[in-house]
């Protein structure tokens, strides 16, 4: 019986438990058009990666607490001091100083507007979102960048006012824990596990 792989960190090192890969034998690929001659083999691969969020961990940790964090360059010597970033940037792309982490939840609630969008009927392997996926890019007042995310209810339009919702139950600690709905959407219309705060 296999056990899902889990990882924690202790004394600065990864501690790994469980199964991180599953072994499946190769099978032959044969040519139906040419007396079933051998063409090649399948090479099954089933493995789990271990990945750190590093300095961005605060952003992903706080989504399930109903918070959106971004960053701001506060380096007085930077030509672009005061620029605010969401997506979160650990370092300023201009001066490379470490940015200040700031809570942007309120700005997002009050000023989020759809900059562009796309309704996508297809997805790739490992997708966990419901299809069609309503990709949206959200712009905010005072923030220099435009966040990519997805709309959970309604039909997206450029210029539509939206508000953030958060997967507070059974969070995945990925960017999918953050979603958006049109302004005025009632709590009961939110997807299971999501709330406004």
């Amino acid at each position, binding site marked *: 019986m296999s056990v899902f792989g889990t990882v924690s960190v202790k004394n600065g090192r990864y501690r790994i438990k469980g199964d991180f890969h599953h072994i499946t034998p190769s099978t032959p690929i044969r040519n139906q058009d040419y007396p079933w001659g051998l063409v090649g083999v399948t090479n099954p691969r089933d493995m789990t990666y271990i990945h750190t969020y590093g300095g961005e961990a605060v952003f992903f940790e706080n989504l399930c607490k109903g918070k959106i964090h971004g960053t701001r360059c506060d380096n007085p010597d930077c030509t672009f001091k005061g620029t605010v970033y969401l997506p979160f940037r650990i370092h300023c792309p201009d001066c490379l100083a470490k940015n200040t982490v700031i809570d942007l939840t309120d700005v997002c609630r009050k000023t989020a507007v759809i900059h562009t969008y796309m309704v996508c009927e*297809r*997805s790739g392997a490992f997708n966990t979102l419901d299809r069609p996926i309503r990709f949206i890019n959200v712009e905010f007042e005072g923030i220099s960048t435009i966040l*990519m995310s997805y709309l959970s209810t309604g039909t997206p339009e450029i210029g539509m006012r939206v508000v953030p919702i958060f997967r507070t139950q059974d969070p995945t600690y990925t960017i999918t824990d953050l979603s958006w709905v049109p302004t005025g959407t009632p709590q009961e219309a939110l997807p299971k596990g999501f709330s406004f705060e």
Partner: protein
Amino acid sequence: MITFSERQLRVPRLLRPVYLVTAGQSKFARAIPEKKTEELAIDAFTMAARLIEKSPAELKRYIHTAYYGHFADHFGDQLLGEAVIHDRLGLDPLGNVGIKTGGATGGSTLWEAVKAVASGYSDCVLAMGWERMDEVPTDEGNHLISCAADKDWETPLGHIYTGYYAVMAQKYWQVFGKQEESFRRTMAEISVKHHGYARFNPFAQAPMKITVDDVLQSPVVAYPLRALDCCLMSVGAACAIVCDEETALELTKNTTNKPLRIWVAAGSHTLRPACRRNMDIPLLPNETQDQYADLGERFPGGDRYPGFTGFLAARMAAWYGYRMTGIVDPMEDLDVIELHDAFTISDMQTYEDIGLRPYGEGRDFVESGDCYHINPHTGQPGRLPSNLSGGLIGCMHAVGATGIMQTFEIATHLWNRWSEIHGDPDLWREFGREKPQDWTDLQVRGAKRGLAISHAGVGSHVTATILMDPDHLLKDNA
């Protein structure tokens, strides 16, 4: 970066002239189960040797270093695939290196190869690119491609790269296309043109005789993009040989290939479109600041540059490339081009990024008939025929090979060998493809200068490869 220092805007200069002497490519197809990648690479190399009447062994004796373009190791489950190909080509122990810049990998491979010759490190360099996209199911392939987006901020959102790209298409469609039916039909016309030209290209994967309505009725992938608006997933290889002048003359002596001058310039922009910040439009030699002063009034929402409607990396590749080579107006100074038509709409966006038309007016390049081999409105040769290979929509997108395929195609026009190569009945037979009864010679008569744009995904990397007949340069000391 949204402002540039003078040093960053220095016009690049090659320390000595570099020449493209020959190139070759394999068949391109969605799947080629009968051949390993090394066989495809050898097919491409053998063709390059044949075009200058050399045996592969003879050509190999000139090569000093090798640059290999292969984007997605994941697809083949083979790291250091470059070393495999290098060994199978029998080029050990020469120095070699792999290049990876997403969809621009082929162009970037040429960029590195040209610099190796220009610097004097090597006199003769092999640039070889390939991709193998047939060894995983399509949905897993889509996941692997989506890994070229930001793995924390984008990939978990559907694991589908089209979604990250198509938001940009949507913005362009609404701002510059104004959601007009006529604009949508112009997008579809690009697909009709590229699938149509692919019918005359024996290397091409998706030759089709289709109509605008066929495109408009094909399945929606991500509205407004439909299946026939999108590029192919392909298997295949392409290569080019670049040399200094002395070696180029020796390699091409008594052959049909005239050595062509080659330059490659490159630009980049954020991997995440989300991170694009507002900036001034870097102007090409044929533009003025004034002409964009009212862009936001003419196209509401179009005043944010590059926003989600322009590709800064393409603009910068052209910015450097045109100044390197003396191009002032690409419509006047170039004779034939190959653009990175990942989608019909991105083909149109590129017309603006590289200055074929001003920002906001890209559709006119198609609607005027300028982009055709023969302008359908006048019956005369098009002013600047584009993607006569069929491009990524009709010919192939074997990622690491694509930029090299485009350069091969441009070169065949400048060598005046397009018809000889693409019309060769033996080649059609060898690839198991039927040469159409109405096969048409697409040679651009008298072509002396050409351009190929190689472009990565949402615009993270773009290269501009410029080829010129050395007797028709635009600038001294280029």
